[in-house]
């Protein structure tokens, strides 16, 4: 019984300590971000690695999500004779919700895991210690460029996802089913608000970018420097990032789209 209580106590203390370390490292990363901006090539290289290499999975997923939205949307809307609003439904679903959220989840699986594994393996190979011994801060040189690359890449990837998804909805709705093309685009153009819909979607994807990328770099930096430790850290990245994205999405949606 005593051991059980001690175990719970240790767990709570460890969790609080980890949360504190997470917050301190986040502040430290922001404070040491000068290098990431002063030597832009470091950040651009990471944008290429993180963003560009995630494009295929984002584009393909966006296309299929658009196909499904086109089909499901048409089936539902035609019951009410509103199939002309298919374009609006597809665009609103993607820009407000699915674009930022699904992109963030895919990003966590594709880029987040690779960031965590890379930093974790650098730690296991004493590369981060070597860097510190060479008087170079790993936070400034390794963590900050990856963090900002993720923050920049996420809204761009989400925009790609939404654009390709809308194209997918168009292919299914207009080309295959025969919804009127003019209605498809004009309803979308009239029904969407630049700030409320597009702007909030962009804000969401920036927040998700901050959350997912920082969780990824943190888990790598905090991992045990062993193969098992890196493997566990990679798993934690996917689980924590996914939960954080879904929780943040609910909070942001409540703040952005609740009337009154």
């Amino acid at each position: 019984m005593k051991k059980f209580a001690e175990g719970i106590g240790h767990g709570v203390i460890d969790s609080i300590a980890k949360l504190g370390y997470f917050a301190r490292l986040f502040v430290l990363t922001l404070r040491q971000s000068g290098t990431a901006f002063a030597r832009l090539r470091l950040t651009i290289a990471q944008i290429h690695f993180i963003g560009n290499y995630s494009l295929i999975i984002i584009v393909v997923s966006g296309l299929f999500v658009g196909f499904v939205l086109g089909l499901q949307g048409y089936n539902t809307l035609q019951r009410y004779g509103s199939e002309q609003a298919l374009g609006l439904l597809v665009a609103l679903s993607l820009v407000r919700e699915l674009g930022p959220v699904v992109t963030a989840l895919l990003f966590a699986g594709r880029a987040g895991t690779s960031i965590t594994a890379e930093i974790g393996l650098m730690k296991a190979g004493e590369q981060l210690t070597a860097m510190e011994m060479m008087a170079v801060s790993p936070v400034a040189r390794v963590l900050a460029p990856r963090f900002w690359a993720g923050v920049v890449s996420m809204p761009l990837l989400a925009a790609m996802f939404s654009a390709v998804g809308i194209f997918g909805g168009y292919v299914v709705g207009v080309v295959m089913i025969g919804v009127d093309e003019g209605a498809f685009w004009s309803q979308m153009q009239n029904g969407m608000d630049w700030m409320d819909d597009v702007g909030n979607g962009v804000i969401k994807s920036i927040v998700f970018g901050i959350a997912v990328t920082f969780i990824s770099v943190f888990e790598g930096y905090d991992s045990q420097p062993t193969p098992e430790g890196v493997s566990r850290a990679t798993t934690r990245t996917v689980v924590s990032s996914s939960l954080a994205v879904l929780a943040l999405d609910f909070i942001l949606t409540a703040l952005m789209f609740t009337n009154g």
Partner: protein
Amino acid sequence: MLMSDSSTPAEQPFVAMQGVSFAYPTLTGAPGRQILSGVDLNVKRGQLVALMGGSGSGKTTILRLLGGQVAPQAGRVTIDGQNVHALKQRELFALRRRMGMLFQFGALFTDMSVFDNVAFPLQEHTDLPQPAIRDLVLMKLNAVGLRGAHALMPSEISGGMARRVALARAIALDPQLIMYDEPFAGLDPISLSITANLIRSLGAALNAASIIVTHDVAESLQIVDYVYFLAEGKIVAQGTPDEIRASTMPYVQQFVAGAPDGPVRFHYPAPEYAADLGLAK
């Protein structure tokens, strides 16, 4: 001079440890198993000092303390008169620019070529133009015999070659203190001999204080100026290579001769073997 009373150097030591005790903290923050107890150690500029002792005796921890990666619970570590553990981050980084460290497994950056690895400290800490950096890098790589391998990636070279690249990187900024963690492990005899001579000549050329953590007694005694023997976190013997060779201390004799029997235990403390196998009556 062979026993634990430390020498009083004629000139101010560049590196000094006085009464240093260290234990890695546990999860609760309390000190864990004692790694070092009351260690005194001095290294002068131009001197090459070896730290020897069995596995787990605290040799690598001494290098971590000198680099300011961990802080002692008691005692003082000074480098060039500066208390390493009283320095602020910026001051510590300024001090580290005057240090070079060769890690046990090289610790090369795996996403950079051999050339970029050696160029890394130069690019981070100097404003030298690229042609000058290129020349310096090729000179350092030439010193370790790997100029021709400059375009290769770390995954394309052997472990021994990686160690030599790491050595070139460690001396890129012409440090005043060079620390070598097991520099001879895994090297073929030719590379080992060349590396040993290189370590000797580098220290002399740079007038650097050099500390070498090693198990390679025979090779080390040929090149070092002074030896500290560690056992269970304490310095149990020290002296010049000749004094070490002539030592009658059982610990030193066992280590130098590589004898299986002696004060250094091969087995980790355990219950009786027969009892563990269930054969005890």
